[in-house]
Each structure stands twice: as C-alpha cells, then as structure tokens.
C-alpha cells in the first residue's frame, strides 16, 4: 500500500485557502498539497502520497541512518550528496569489453 516518494519542495503558495507547493521529483515538478506538512519550507524534502505531503524528511535522522549503514560494513563513502550519481551501472558483460 501507499506509494510515497520523497521530493524537494521548491516553493510554497496558497490556492483557495489550501497550502500547496511545487515539489521536484528527479527531473519533473508537480503541485502537491501541503496542508499536512504545514511547517515545510523550500529546500525541505517531503514524502508525497496521492498528491499530498504526508511527512517531512528529517535530514538529521537520515544522516544518522547512514551512519548505521556504515557500521554495517559498507564502504562509508556513501553520502546523500552522491545520490544523484548513484544509479549503479553494471560492468562489462562476460566475455566482452564495452566499447
């Protein structure tokens, strides 16, 4: 249940008495209802479900959880700032070098 995707809040505005915001997901932006994330400001990340922000990402908690992951024995080089480059590419296929 409950597909919820984090996006970056770019701007906040009022539409007929409802708080809305422009939220960026990867390369696109969408209007999202912010009534349930009233303290979110531009630059925050919010989790969006069916057009509503249901939660504001706690950046400190996210950083802390990375520390836990590092304790689990991964390389420790992973930071949130690297995220944009992360989609791992596979190496060359067996028996061949990619040109």
């Amino acid at each position: 249940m409950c597909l919820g995707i984090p996006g970056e809040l770019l701007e906040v505005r009022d539409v007929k008495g409802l708080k809305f915001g422009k939220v960026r997901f990867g390369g696109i932006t969408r209007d999202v209802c912010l009534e349930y994330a009233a303290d979110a400001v531009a630059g925050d990340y919010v989790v969006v479900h069916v057009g509503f922000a249901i939660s504001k990402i706690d950046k400190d908690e996210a950083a802390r959880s990375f520390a836990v992951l590092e304790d689990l024995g991964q390389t420790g080089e992973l930071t949130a700032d690297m995220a944009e480059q992360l989609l791992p590419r596979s190496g060359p296929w067996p028996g061949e070098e990619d040109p």
Partner: protein
Amino acid sequence: MKYLDEYRDGGVASSIAKTIAETVTRPWVLMEVCGGQTHSIVRYGIDRMIPPEVELVHGPGCPVCVTSLEMIDKAHAIASRPGVIFTSFGDMLRVPGSRGDLLTLKSRGADVRVVYSPLDAVRIASQNPAREVVFFGIGFETTAPANAMAVYRARKEGVGNFSMLLSHVLVPPAMAAILQAPGNRVQGFLGPGHVCAIMGYREYESLAERYRVPIVITGFEPIDLLEGILMTVRQLETGRAVVENQYARAVTRDGNPAARALVLEVFEVGDRKWRGVGSIPKSGYKIRYEYRMHDAEKRFHVEEIATEESSLCISGQILRGLKKPSDCSAFGTLCTPQKPLGATMVSAEGACAAYYQYGRFLDSASLPAVTAQAPTA
C-alpha cells in the same frame, strides 16, 4: 533522486544481507504488512538475497486487493448510472467484482476516469456541475487524510455533486486478527512505514506488548527493507519484542496530528469487510453523519447491495501463512487471476496469483519471484 538512490545501493544491500545471514541462527517467520513493501521485495529480488531461515509472509496490506467484493459491486452499480463520472486510483480499475471490473464497465460506455489524487476528482466535479462525480475512496491510514480532505473541501466549497464511495481499512485490527488466529506462524512484523507517518506508532507498541511480537516500522526502499528485516531478526534472536523505527527519517512516534485531526473530522471508525478474510470489527473508516451528502453509498442508495464472498476461498489462511494455494479446492479452477475469489489471487504479488503463473518455478526454487505488477484481472 535524493532519499531514493542511496537506499538502492547494491553494495550496502549485500552487506546488510550478509549481516542478516550472520545474525540468524534458526528459522523465523516475518510478515511485511504493507503491499508496497511486498512490491519492493519482489521488484528488487530481496526475497532471494536473504538467508533461507528468514521466511517472508506477504501481509494483507494492499488496499486494492482487500477491498471487498461487495464494495466493488457497489462501485459497479454507481458507475453504471447515467450521468455519473466515476473516478478512481488506477490500480482499482482492474479488480473484478462479481459483475466484472470497472475497466470492462468503461468499455460498455460508463464514464470511468483515473485520477492521481482525490482532489482531482473534486476539481472534475466543480468543472462538471451537471454531472454526479464519485470517487472510489480506498486505502489504508496513509490515504485517509487525502480522501478526508477531498470530502472536507467539497463540503466547504459547496461542490454538491461530489461524493465518495469509501472503503477504508485500518492496519492494527488486521494485525491483531492475524496474531489471534489459531496456529498463527508470524513471529515478527515489518511495520507499515507510510501508515505510521500519519498514525505514529503508539498503537503498535501495545500490539508488541500484548502479543510479545517485535514490530519494526520499515520504509519501502530495498535497503530500508533489508535493514528492517535485520532489526526484526536481531530482536527475535535476542528474545526482545518491542517497536523499533527503521524509517525514522519519515516517521515519528506521534505521526502527523494535523492529518489525523482532519481524518477524524470527516470519518469515524467502523466495521469493515476484507476480501477473502471477512468482516473485522472496527477495521475501517466510514463517512460521518455530518458529511452524509458526500457519502456515495447513501446518495445512490447502494447500501442494500450485499455480496457474499465465496465460502471456498481460503485466502485469509494463506495471508496468514497457514495454508498454501495448492491446498485450496478452488485454486486454478473456480479461482484464477481473471476471476479471483480472494485477495491473494487479485494481486500479481499475491501468493495464489504467483503460484498460478509460476508454480513450476516456485516448486523448483530455481528462479526468482514474479516481477511486481499492479493487481491483475
């Protein structure tokens, strides 16, 4: 994408999987409650990365799949009326009721539309004042604030031609029903992260205490799920049974009070039927009396529609991990992905649908699980 890509890193995933394998000393049965978690587990092949001692039972947390036959029949009856624009989330359209699914109804001329947000349905209503616009309000606690807002705004803005067919379900009563069932095998839960983003996790603390069962509130990305599995296994191995929060970046103990307040303004708790499981007391929301003019069940007088679920269906027991699809007398004959009797055949990720399509591989265990798809019909 930030807060997604980090949680899909193969190196981290395999190191957590390795830690799980080092931690586990005997078999454990875990249930991920939420259909979105099931989707990720299958989509990323997590079930194939963890040690065989850890058995994952897919829980009842797909609101599309557990929507009762009766509600879908009511949706059918309303959408068939002339002049009605029937709106719904996309994945609900393919789920069959006893008279077929909503997509088929559309092919016969009904005006059935997919919307992304319930507010879009309110907008369609204000743009089409001469038509009745109905939204099929399904979901768990996560979706309730959005659906409640649609009803609230419709009343506030005087959009009198908007109504909602509400079929909301609640997670804790379903978890309690699973834990109370005779022969229950589930020893630990991955709790539903986005449900708890709204509700917080105090309710889950009393479940953990009463049933002596570890519950780890877990996110939806592969590394969230692997970490949630690890945290649950650690509790089981050390004899603890408490609520822990793996998904702390999005979930707090108190959840989202503003969202809950509006939900309780518009909805109240009531009994609810679950497909293939039956009625669970106080396991859903109903629209409050004050908002009855936006309650499609009352507006279209479909309350008397009562559809019995098939008595043959054992999906309740399959959901609880008590029985296998092949134990069912209706499996593959009266019950197929095209004409499913219960939730486990409705969803492509459901045990029955997966077994139906890929039974020979599930037996040979030589192949990964089925790719995750929206519920099939």
